[in-house]
């Protein structure tokens, strides 16, 4: 919804064949399984999925903040000219907080409770820019103003626990933007907040994106947020991207049975009589330990057929760079929602 989708600009982030494998007692857990996507400057790219689909592992992998037991591999992982796979830990640390920012779900745990807001914000700036304290302080005040915090000089002297949840998330955003990153990865940035505050924070993110021109990867389970925020999106299920495309395409013409199922689960509000029953997806997410044959959604899918259980499911390309991973051809896939509406 935010910036125009500048298809021509070269991507700022290119991910090809990225996998994250975790060693667990019972074997190898394929948390992220050969995913591809790219994000262009100024774009909002949403990764949506339910718990355990691998979206958080994806964000941690991009920041190279994976737990020690995890193994990251990719055929290509390029951010702004840097190869994230071969970058040294030191160079990666230089990149984080500077050109690559991250906003976490819980602003209480991602801010250090024993330092003032000012201290923490200035620290980020001093570390990446060779500047004096005074300049850092001015920058921190400026950023707090940009995120809509009144009397920033006063707030800088306060500690995280003195602020409300919404304010803390604003501080977190201000801190992330201190060095004007090219890409911000936001992992469920509003899940811990009240609904009205959530809308305000999302609006703030959109406004700042226009102002600073950064790209945003927004990771969330909330389809409503995705629909309103995303330029492009990827739906993840069981470690794989099962559908991708522009927000308009995916929400108005979902092709993958999982995406269709998810959308049916949402309580609608259309000023009419409310639905008497919500759609739901039976079953649970399969175990990601060991080799997965065929489609991870097959056991929960209403349209499952023999081809779903064998081999890798190929990605079906659609116009405008959209794609979905299913054995069912597009025309047949699109015919389904209507068929379900009248059982």
């Amino acid at each position: 919804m935010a910036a125009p989708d500048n298809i021509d600009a070269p991507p700022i982030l290119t991910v090809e064949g990225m996998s994250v494998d975790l060693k667990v007692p019972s074997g190898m857990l394929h948390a992220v399984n050969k995913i591809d996507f790219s994000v262009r400057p100024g774009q909002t790219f949403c990764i949506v999925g339910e718990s355990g689909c691998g979206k958080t592992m994806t964000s941690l992998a991009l920041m190279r903040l994976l737990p020690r037991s995890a193994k990251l591999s990719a055929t290509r992982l390029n951010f702004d000219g840097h190869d994230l796979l071969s970058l040294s830990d030191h160079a990666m640390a230089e990149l984080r907080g500077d050109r690559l920012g991250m906003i976490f779900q819980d602003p209480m745990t991602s801010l250090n409770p024993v330092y003032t807001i000012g201290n923490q914000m200035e620290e980020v700036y001093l570390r990446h820019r060779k500047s004096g304290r005074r300049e850092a302080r001015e920058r921190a005040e400026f950023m707090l103003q940009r995120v809509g915090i009144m009397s920033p000089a006063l707030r800088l002297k306060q500690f995280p626990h003195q602020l409300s949840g919404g304010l803390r998330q604003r501080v977190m955003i201000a801190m992330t933007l201190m060095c004007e990153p090219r890409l911000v990865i936001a992992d469920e940035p509003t899940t811990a907040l009240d609904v009205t505050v959530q809308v305000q924070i999302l609006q703030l993110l959109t406004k700042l994106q226009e102002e600073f021109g950064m790209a945003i990867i927004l990771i969330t389970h909330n389809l409503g947020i995705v629909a309103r925020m995303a330029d492009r999106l990827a739906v993840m299920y069981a470690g794989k991207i099962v559908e991708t495309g522009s927000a308009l395409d995916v929400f108005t013409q979902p092709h993958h049975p999982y995406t269709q199922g998810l959308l049916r689960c949402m309580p609608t509000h259309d000023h009419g009589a409310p639905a008497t029953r919500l759609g739901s997806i039976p079953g649970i997410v399969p175990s990601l330990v060991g080799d997965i044959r065929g489609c991870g959604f097959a056991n929960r899918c209403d349209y499952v057929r023999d081809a779903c259980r064998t081999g890798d499911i190929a990605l079906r390309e659609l116009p405008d760079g959209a794609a979905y991973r299913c054995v069912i051809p597009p025309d047949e896939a699109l015919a389904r929602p209507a068929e379900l509406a009248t059982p």
Partner: protein
Amino acid sequence: MTDATVKAVPEALADGEIVAPSPREEMRRRAKSHIGLIFGGSIVTLVTLIAIFAPILAPYDPYDQDLTRRLIDPVWKTGNWANILGTDALGRDYLSRLIYGARISLMVGFGAAAIAGTVGSLIGIIGGYFGGRVDSVVVYLINVKLALPGLLIALSLVSIVGGSVGALVLILGFLTWDRYAVVTRSVAQQLRGNDFITAARAVGASQTRIILGELLPNVMNQIIVIASLEIAIVILIEAALSFLGLGVKPPEPSWGLMIAEARNFMFFKPHLIAIPGFAIFLLVIAINMAGDGLRDVTAPEGRN
């Protein structure tokens, strides 16, 4: 109640699939690969079995004196197979005394831990669960206990009451409850905010039921781990007290007392000190290893 209701059941039954092994299976799996736990645990078990079956295993009566057979060397020096570990200054079979000594060590250790564990855990859980004024009293009790010079009190009490095994168990039990109380109190504090406690209250469960039925199972791991470490400490204290002549009275075969009795022969019969000393060392280190192992096996991630 339409066809939709009928559909609701199977859609959920489909996820009857069990996603993870049970906590017990997890624990068993971890225990199997923990060398310290296996090593320590098997030694403790072995000593316990020896203590239980002492009358069968001991070749002689540990109290039987035979002054004609004093200070016989063990079999690997100049001794004979009749007295494998030789005899002491009163001609009592050293192996039999060692075997019966295990009984005293374990009885004092486990007995004191049982008393301390029950008293301390109950005090701790009650303080942590109820909070407020009750907790203030509990904290006060714990602080008073921590400020007391424990060993000094043990020494003076034993010298007043006398050193029977029962008295030692009681005294040491009431001197070591504080650690149980500190740990269980903090765990209970964390747990009391959990909704399963609220749910139990909403169902009308009594406070006793909540404490014993809901809280205790969640604190049990910690209690067992502390107990294993405390048992080792108590065994050492018992040995020390007996060595000083303030613990178990002769002719009881306490390991500490055996060392004390062997003092006079330290230079020409060093094995008389070395054998019970090594027994204490082995038992204490085995209990410590088992305790560490239990802590690892029941570690927080195992509790989900």
